[in-house]
C-alpha cells in the first residue's frame, strides 16, 4: 500500500499506467516496480515451473519482475521509470524483440581524469574530492537521481542536496544519471549505457583513473518456498518504504543473518507495521533492544524454514512454530558489486567476515570504495536452511532460472565440482540478471555440498546489465552503417539509371539498363559497343600511388615480379606483385612520369593495402631507399574510353594523344589539364583519360557529347569483367584467392628471372613448384548457351558424387560473350594445363554441366585489336 506521506515521489503528479492491460496509478518518481507494489501487482509467473512470483528487489538485481515496454523486452520493472501512459506486459523470463526499435540511440566518446562509477555515499565523496582538485571528473549513476542507497535514508537527504549542488558547481565535472557503466575494458576504456528520452546514448569513456563505488547487492536466504510473492530483500523493503512511500506488507517477518536488516525492521515499525525479527544468529544483536522498544519482537537463533500462502505469502514456519504475515523481508548478507573490478582484470578474494567476494588486486588504474570494497556488516553465513521434510526442491537459488538447491545437488551428485560446470548444468546465473542475487549463494551451496570450506571464485564479464542492441547499433544503420564511397561522376551514373555493385566500400556502376532491358541484354549490348564502336567506363576507383625519389625504380623492381627501373619516361607497363609467400597480391599498370617519379595503379579493393605494403617494406626493411609514396587515388578521376572508335572520341577533346600502346601524354582534354594513356583492359584500342577529381564530371559529360555521333555507350563493371575475361586477364581477388602464384595463372612471362623481388624465393619451394597445382584455364560449356555458375566445383567425368568427392577445382569467372556468341568461363583447375581439350563436369543441384578445358584467352589471341 502507498503510505499517506513521505518518500521522494511527486504526489502532485499522478500517472496512469497499465500492466497486462489493467490500469493503475502511480506518481512521478516511482519505478514501475514501486507502482506495481503499491497496487499489489504480481510479477509474471516463473519461466519453467509457472510459479507465481513477486517483486524481490528494488534495483538491477531484480530476478523476477521482467516486463516488456514498447519495443524493449526484458526490462526489470525495478529499472523502469514510471511515466504517464506506460503499457507494460509482464514476462515469464523471456522477451521478444517484437518490433523494430525506432528510438534514437547514438554514441559519443568522452575522456576524463577520474571516472566515478556510482553516485551513492562513497561515489559522491570521491567525486567531490576529485572535483575540488579541478580534475576532469565523470560521475555516472544508473538511477534517475544521485544518492544510491542514501535515497532510502531520509535523514541523509540534506547532506545529499549539498553535495549534489557542489558537484554542479565544478566546471570540469560531468554528472551522468540514468547511466549504467556496463563494461570495463583494457586500458581504462569503459562503456556507459545512458537512458535518454526516446532512446539512449552509448558513452565510450577513456579514464585516467576509475573509482568503483558500485555498492552492494543483498543476498536472499535459501529456505523452502523462498520464492513466494511477499518474500523480498530486506534492503529493498526499506527502499520501497522510504524512497517510494510504499509499504509492501502490514505484518512483516524480518529474517536475517546480519545487522543490516534491523534498519528495515525499525522503519517498518515506524510506518505502523507489525514486525517479528527472526535472527539466525544465536547471540542476540545489540540492535534487538531498539526493535523491542519500538514495539517489535526479536528472536535470536531463529530462522524461517518454510512459507505458505497463494499467491501471496500468508504465514511462515519458524522451525516448529508458524507466524502469520504478509511480508517476509530477508537478508542473507551483501555482495559487493565487484563486476567492473573483475571485468577490468582485478582479482577477488573471499572475505570470511562478510561471507562475500571482495576486490583483491586491481589490474588497471582503478580503486573500489565503500560497500563495493567490502565495507559491510559482518554476517553469519547460512547457505541453506533445511526444510522440516528434508526436501530441497522449493529452495530457490536462482528464481529467474527456476533453479533450486535440488538442481545444484543433482549437478554435484553427477560429479561436477567447478562452479562453471554447475552453472552450465543448472543454467544458474545465465539469465538477464546474470545471477546478481543467485551467484554467491550458489557458490555457497556448492561449497557445502562438496564439503569445501569456502565458496570458490568467480569472474565477471561485460555487460553488467543487459544492453539493447539498438543502443549498440546507435546511428550505424541505413546509409550510416558503412560509408558508400562514390566517384566524382557518381551523380551522372545515378541519373542514367545505372545499377550499382559494391566493390569494397565503393559503389560502382554495374550496368546501365535501358528501359525494359534485362541485365543479360544490357551487358551484351555494352560489350558489343566496346568491341565494335566505343564504350566508356568510370575507372576512378582504381588505386593510384605516386612514388617519388631516385630509388623509386629500384623499389618497384623489388616489389613487382617484373622490372620497372628501365621503363622509359612517358610509357607504362603492366605489373604484378606477390607477398613473401609467392602468392599474387595485386596487379596494375605503372607509369613512369619522370626519371624519379612513377605512378602505380592498384585494383579498386586493394588501394589502401598496397600503399600499406609499400610503406611496410620501405620503412621496416629498406629505409635506405630514397623514395616516398603518396596516395593520389582521388586526386584523379579516370575515364576509360574503349573500342575501335575511341580514338575519334578522345581525339576530338584532347590536345594531344599518346603515340603508341602503353604510352601516355600530359595534355589537356576539354580544356582542362589531363593525362591520357593508351592502356587497355579489354584488348581493344582504348584510352584512359585522367583529370583532377573536380573536373571528372565535366570531362565525362564532354566525352559523352563527343561520342554521341558514334553511339558511345557507358558500361559498368560487369561488361568490364566480360571484356577482360574474353582476353583471359585475371582479376586479383576473383580469379585468385591468396593461394595462386603468377605461374599458376600461366603468367611466367611476368616473372623476372634476373632480378630479386618479394616472393621470388617462394616460387621454387617444392609445394609452389608442384606440377599438379591449380592453374588458370578457360572453360567452354559443351552447350554454348549453358552458363556455369561462378564458384561451381569441377570434377572429372564419371566421378561418383558420394562424399568426399575429389574436386579438381572451381569456376572463378563465367559470362555470356557477345563477341563469341556463347558462354565461357575461367577456372582454377588441378593440373589444368595438362587437361587442355579434356572435358570436366560441374555437378549442380539440378543438373551437371560439361565443359571443355581451353586456354584462358578466348578473343583476339594475337592481340591485333589493341591498336584499333
Amino acid at each position, binding site marked *: 500500500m502507498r503510505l499517506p506521506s513521505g518518500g521522494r515521489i511527486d504526489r502532485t503528479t499522478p500517472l496512469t499506467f497499465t500492466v497486462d492491460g489493467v490500469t493503475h496509478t502511480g506518481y512521478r518518481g516511482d519505478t514501475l516496480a514501486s507502482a506495481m507494489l503499491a497496487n499489489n501487482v504480481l510479477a509474471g509467473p516463473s519461466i519453467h515451473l509457472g510459479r507465481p512470483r513477486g517483486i524481490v528487489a528494488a534495483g538491477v538485481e531484480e530476478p523476477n519482475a521482467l516486463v516488456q515496454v514498447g519495443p524493449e523486452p526484458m526490462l526489470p520493472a525495478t529499472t523502469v521509470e514510471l511515466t504517464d501512459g506506460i503499457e507494460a506486459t509482464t514476462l515469464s523470463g523471456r522477451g521478444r524483440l517484437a518490433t523494430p526499435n525506432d528510438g534514437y540511440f547514438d554514441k559519443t566518446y568522452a575522456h576524463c581524469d577520474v571516472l566515478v562509477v556510482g553516485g551513492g555515499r562513497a561515489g559522491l565523496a570521491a567525486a567531490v574530492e576529485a572535483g575540488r582538485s579541478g580534475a576532469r571528473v565523470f560521475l555516472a549513476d544508473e538511477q534517475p537521481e544521485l544518492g544510491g542507497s542514501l535515497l532510502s535514508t531520509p535523514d541523509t537527504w540534506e547532506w545529499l542536496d549539498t553535495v549534489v549542488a557542489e558537484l554542479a558547481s565544478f566546471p570540469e565535472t560531468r554528472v551522468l544519471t540514468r547511466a549504467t557503466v556496463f563494461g570495463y*575494458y*583494457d*586500458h*581504462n*576504456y569503459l562503456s556507459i549505457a545512458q537512458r535518454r528520452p526516446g532512446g539512449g546514448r552509448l558513452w*565510450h569513456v*577513456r579514464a585516467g583513473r576509475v573509482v568503483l563505488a558500485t555498492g552492494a547487492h543483498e543476498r536472499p536466504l535459501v529456505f523452502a518456498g523462498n520464492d513466494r510473492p511477499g518474500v523480498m530483500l530486506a534492503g529493498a523493503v526499506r527502499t520501497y518504504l522510504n524512497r517510494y512511500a510504499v509499504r509492501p506488507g502490514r505484518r512483516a517477518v524480518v529474517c536475517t543473518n546480519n545487522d543490516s536488516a534491523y534498519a528495515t525492521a525499525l522503519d517498518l515499525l515506524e510506518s505502523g507495521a507489525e514486525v517479528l525479527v527472526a535472527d539466525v544468529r544465536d547471540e542476540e544483536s545489540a540492535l534487538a533492544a531498539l526493535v523491542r522498544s519500538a514495539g517489535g519482537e526479536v528472536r535470536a537463533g531463529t530462522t524461517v524454514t518454510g512459507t505458505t500462502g497463494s499467491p501471496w505469502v500468508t504465514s511462515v514456519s519458524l522451525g516448529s512454530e508458524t507466524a502469520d504475515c504478509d511480508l517476509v523481508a530477508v537478508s542473507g548478507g551483501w555482495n559487493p558489486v565487484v563486476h567492473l573490478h573483475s571485468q577490468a*582484470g582485478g582479482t577477488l578474494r573471499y572475505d570470511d567476515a562478510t561471507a562475500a567476494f571482495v576486490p583483491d588486486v586491481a*589490474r588497471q588504474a582503478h580503486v573500489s570504495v565503500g560497500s563495493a570494497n567490502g565495507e559491510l556488516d559482518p554476517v553469519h553465513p547460512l547457505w541453506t536452511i533445511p526444510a522440516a521434510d528434508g526436501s530441497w526442491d522449493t529452495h530457490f537459488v536462482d528464481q529467474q532460472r527456476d533453479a533450486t538447491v535440488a538442481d545444484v545437488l543433482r549437478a554435484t551428485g553427477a560429479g561436477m565440482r567447478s562452479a562453471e560446470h554447475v552453472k552450465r548444468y543448472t543454467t544458474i546465473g545465465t539469465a538477464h540478471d546474470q545471477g546478481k542475487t543467485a551467484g554467491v549463494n550458489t557458490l555457497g551451496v556448492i561449497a557445502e555440498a562438496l564439503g569445501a570450506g569456502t565458496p570458490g571464485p568467480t569472474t565477471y564479464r561485460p555487460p553488467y546489465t543487459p544492453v539493447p542492441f539498438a543502443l549498440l547499433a546507435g546511428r550505424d544503420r541505413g546509409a550510416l552503417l558503412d560509408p558508400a564511397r562514390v566517384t566524382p561522376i557518381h551523380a551522372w551514373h545515378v541519373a542514367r539509371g545505372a545499377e550499382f555493385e559494391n566493390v569494397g566500400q565503393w559503389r560502382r556502376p554495374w550496368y546501365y539498363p535501358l528501359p525494359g532491358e534485362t541485365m543479360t541484354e544490357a551487358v551484351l549490348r555494352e560489350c558489343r559497343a566496346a568491341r565494335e564502336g566505343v564504350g566508356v567506363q568510370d575507372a576512378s576507383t582504381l588505386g593510384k600511388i605516386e612514388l617519388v625519389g631516385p630509388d623509386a625504380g629500384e623499389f618497384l623492381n623489388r616489389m613487382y615480379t617484373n622490372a620497372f627501373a628501365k621503363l622509359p619516361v612517358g610509357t607504362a607497363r603492366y605489373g604484378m606483385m606477390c607477398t*613473401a*609467400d609467392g602468392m599474387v597480391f595485386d596487379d596494375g599498370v605503372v607509369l613512369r612520369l619522370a626519371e624519379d617519379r612513377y605512378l602505380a595503379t592498384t585494383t579498386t579493393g586493394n588501394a*589502401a593495402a598496397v*600503399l*600499406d605494403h609499400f*610503406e*611496410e617494406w620501405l*620503412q*621496416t*626493411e629498406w629505409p635506405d631507399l630514397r623514395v616516398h609514396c603518396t596516395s593520389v587515388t582521388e586526386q584523379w578521376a579516370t575515364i576509360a574510353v574503349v573500342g575501335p572508335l575511341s580514338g575519334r572520341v578522345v581525339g576530338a577533346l584532347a590536345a594531344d594523344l599518346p603515340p603508341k600502346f602503353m604510352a601516355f601524354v600530359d595534355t589537356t582534354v576539354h580544356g582542362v589539364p589531363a593525362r591520357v594513356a593508351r592502356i587497355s583492359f579489354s584488348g581493344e584500342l582504348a584510352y584512359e583519360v585522367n583529370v583532377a577529381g573536380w573536373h571528372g564530371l565535366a570531362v565525362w559529360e564532354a566525352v559523352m557529347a563527343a561520342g554521341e555521333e558514334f553511339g558511345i555507350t557507358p558500361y559498368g563493371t560487369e561488361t568490364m569483367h566480360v571484356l577482360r575475361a574474353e582476353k583471359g586477364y585475371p582479376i586479383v581477388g576473383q580469379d585468385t584467392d591468396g593461394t595462386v602464384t603468377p605461374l599458376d595463372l600461366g603468367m611466367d612471362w611476368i616473372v623476372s628471372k634476373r632480378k*630479386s623481388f618479394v616472393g*621470388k*624465393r*617462394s616460387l621454387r*619451394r*617444392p609445394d609452389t613448384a608442384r606440377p599438379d597445382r591449380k592453374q588458370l584455364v578457360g572453360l567452354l560449356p559443351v552447350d554454348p548457351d549453358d552458363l556455369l555458375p561462378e564458384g561451381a566445383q569441377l570434377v572429372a567425368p564419371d566421378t561418383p558424387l558420394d562424399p568426399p568427392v575429389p574436386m579438381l577445382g572451381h569456376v572463378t569467372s563465367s559470362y555470356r560473350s557477345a563477341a563469341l556468341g556463347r558462354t565461357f568461363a575461367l577456372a582454377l583447375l588441378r593440373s589444368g594445363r595438362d587437361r587442355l581439350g579434356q572435358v570436366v563436369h560441374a555437378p549442380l543441384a539440378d543438373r551437371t554441366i560439361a565443359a571443355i578445358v581451353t586456354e584462358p584467352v578466348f578473343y583476339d589471341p594475337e592481340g591485333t585489336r589493341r591498336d584499333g
Partner: protein
Amino acid sequence: MLLIRCPWCGPRNEVEFSYGGAADVVYPPDPDALSDAEWGEYVFVRDNPRGPFAERWVHTAGCRRWFRAVRNTVTHEFREES
C-alpha cells in the same frame, strides 16, 4: 579497446592501428641462399608466447608509421618503441 601510443602521434585508440605480427623477423638479405626449410621458417613460422611479445604495429589511420612494441599477451600491457 587498447590505448596504443604511436611514437609520433601519441596515444590513440586501437582501431587506428593495424597489426603487423612478430617483430624482429628480418628479411633475409639473400633469399636464394636459404634452403627451402630456412625460407619456409622465415615466411610461415612465428612464436606465439604467453607474456611479453615483441610486435610490429602500424598507425594506419594516422601517420602510417610502423613501430615496434612489446605487448603482454596476457595483460595487454603495452610498451611502445619507435
